[in-house]
């Protein structure tokens, strides 16, 4: 079996034609992933027992003539910030090195109910904090397209396994661009659904008002299928939305003629020229497909980074308070008093970026600074959301770059945290507004580095986003 060339629909057809069994496919995927992983460090650990048990269940269903589900037999990887019962979940942190969750995330349960085969847990930045996957306590991930470069972050492992072909699809999480940016850097499709579209139950919290679970895949169709399988109301997450889940695959009909597409002028400042040229070419292609392109303005873009890094660090400092040596696996040996235990456990356990964000978050929430930073940022967030609402009164979708530049070299940006934060400029606004957004590949630079095109639509309109992405993808293949 050639795992890197597989798609969900191909697997469905192959299983039906008995070209291979689900167990054979799972074993082949596990073997291939284990042999390829030393190149990229994209998997932190494998879950062979669970994968083979899930695959056997798919084979049993097929033998009985039953439907094996939307993802029957499909080998997937799950970012290691999403809990898997009985399978180690580390958040790429030393603090959780030995954490075995007692429950499954809702997204995981739903994908397995549809026949998915989880072969392993994907590396990422510690607690999903980072834009390069260099903040993992278990070593960085290398970009499979160019091994001396980062895969992006924080879901770098989830993007890399799909690009490398060691999984067919994967799950990541996005708080400020952590799905779209690595998808763009690795040349795969990555989707951040509407906030609340997918349950966050079992997603280890970083910034709860911004955290999303979403899929990576090699085709738009496969991401649509994965989202359909896991979206929808979950009573374990009070912020999950009750809105009905449409058939996203039915939206992939190529009908994009007449769609009005907005180009936010603020998103083309500071864009590296080769990436800019590829984005322009993509926009020309959308015109040829019959879309109408209009320039729009999202005026609060310039303040978005400041807004985002106040809100996300404030929420992170609160969410990470629970790792104090009491409940979660690690406790410092220097724990004479309770206060020593808290301080030393956290001091030993958290990496540099987590410490930085805990400190910033604690500072902006502290007495005397709350109004100037946190409250002000929440108001600016409201203005950013209003910018989008105004834009979507005029256009059906917004198209923009994902990142100001393609994948950079390992170590290149680690010395300057602010520069790293600034690279998130085009992706954080979608999270702040809570709208669906995705990255779809739009070509490679002369050096062969992938560039992604970002598509954003209004709340719960993933269908239009997928329809446009799919039509564009198909027109590039043709």
């Amino acid at each position, binding site marked *: 079996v050639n795992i890197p060339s597989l798609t969900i629909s191909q697997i469905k057809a192959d299983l039906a034609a008995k070209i291979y069994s689900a167990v054979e496919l799972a074993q082949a995927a596990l073997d291939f992933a284990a042999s390829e992983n030393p190149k990229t460090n994209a998997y932190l650990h494998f879950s062979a027992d669970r994968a083979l048990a899930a695959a056997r269940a798919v084979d049993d269903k097929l033998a009985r003539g039953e439907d094996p589900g939307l993802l029957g037999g499909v080998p997937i990887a799950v970012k290691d910030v999403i809990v898997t019962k009985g399978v180690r979940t580390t958040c790429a942190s030393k603090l959780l090195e030995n954490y075995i969750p007692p429950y499954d995330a809702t997204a995981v349960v739903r994908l397995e109910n549809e026949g998915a085969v989880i072969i392993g847990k994907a590396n990422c930045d510690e607690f999903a904090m980072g834009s390069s996957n260099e903040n993992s306590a278990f070593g960085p991930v290398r970009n499979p397209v160019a091994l001396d470069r980062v895969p992006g972050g924080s879901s770098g492992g989830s993007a890399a396994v799909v690009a490398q072909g060691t999984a067919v699809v994967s799950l990541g999480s996005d708080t400020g661009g952590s799905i779209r940016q690595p998808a763009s850097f690795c040349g795969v499709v990555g989707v951040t659904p509407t906030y609340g579209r997918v349950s966050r139950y079992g997603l280890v919290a970083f910034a709860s008002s911004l955290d999303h679970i979403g899929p990576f895949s090699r085709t738009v169709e496969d991401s649509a299928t994965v989202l359909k399988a896991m979206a929808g109301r979950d009573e374990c997450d009070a912020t999950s939305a009750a809105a009905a889940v449409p058939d996203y695959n039915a939206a992939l009909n190529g009908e994009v003629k007449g769609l009005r597409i907005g180009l936010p002028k603020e998103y083309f400042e500071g864009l590296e020229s080769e990436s800019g040229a590829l984005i322009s070419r993509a926009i020309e292609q959308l015109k040829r497909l019959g879309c109408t392109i209009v320039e729009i303005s999202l005026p609060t873009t310039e303040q978005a980074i400041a807004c985002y890094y106040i809100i996300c660090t404030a929420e992170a400092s609160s969410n990470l308070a629970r790792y104090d040596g009491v*409940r*979660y*696996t690690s406790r410092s040996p220097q724990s004479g008093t309770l206060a020593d*235990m808290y301080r030393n456990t956290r001091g030993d356990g958290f990496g540099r970026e987590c410490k930085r964000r805990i400190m910033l978050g*604690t500072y902006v929430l502290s007495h005397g600074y709350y109004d100037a930073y946190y409250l002000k940022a929440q108001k600016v967030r409201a203005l950013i*959301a209003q910018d989008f609402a105004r834009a979507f009164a005029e256009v059906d979708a917004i198209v923009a770059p994902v990142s100001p530049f393609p994948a950079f070299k390992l170590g290149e940006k680690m010395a300057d*945290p*602010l520069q790293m934060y600034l690279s998130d400029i085009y992706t954080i606004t979608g999270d702040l507004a809570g709208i669906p957004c995705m990255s779809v590949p739009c070509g490679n630079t002369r050096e062969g580095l992938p560039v992604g095109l970002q598509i954003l639509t209004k*709340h719960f309109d993933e269908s239009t986003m997928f329809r446009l992405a799919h039509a564009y993808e198909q027109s590039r293949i043709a």
Partner: protein
Amino acid sequence: MKITEKEVRYVADLANLRLTEDEIQAMAHDMDEILVYMEKLGQVNTDGVEPMAQVLYAADETSTLRDDVEHPERRFTSAIATANAPQAGQGYFKVPKVIERA
């Protein structure tokens, strides 16, 4: 200067986070640079703007409520809840002594 090393120590204390002397120095430098950048927020007029704490969209008022029924499959025993604790016993989390004998 937005933040001094002394303030960094104070914030680390609030966050229950032990930092080494080197970390305090580097943290003061990084936080200062970032907090100066955050001044950008002052460029925006937010008079009369309601703060946005959460993504909101149209939905029924009760759409986030679940039926008040037990879910035995989701029930945690204390054995399950303490299984990942660094130190546990008799169904409890154990921590260093909090109250000293006088």
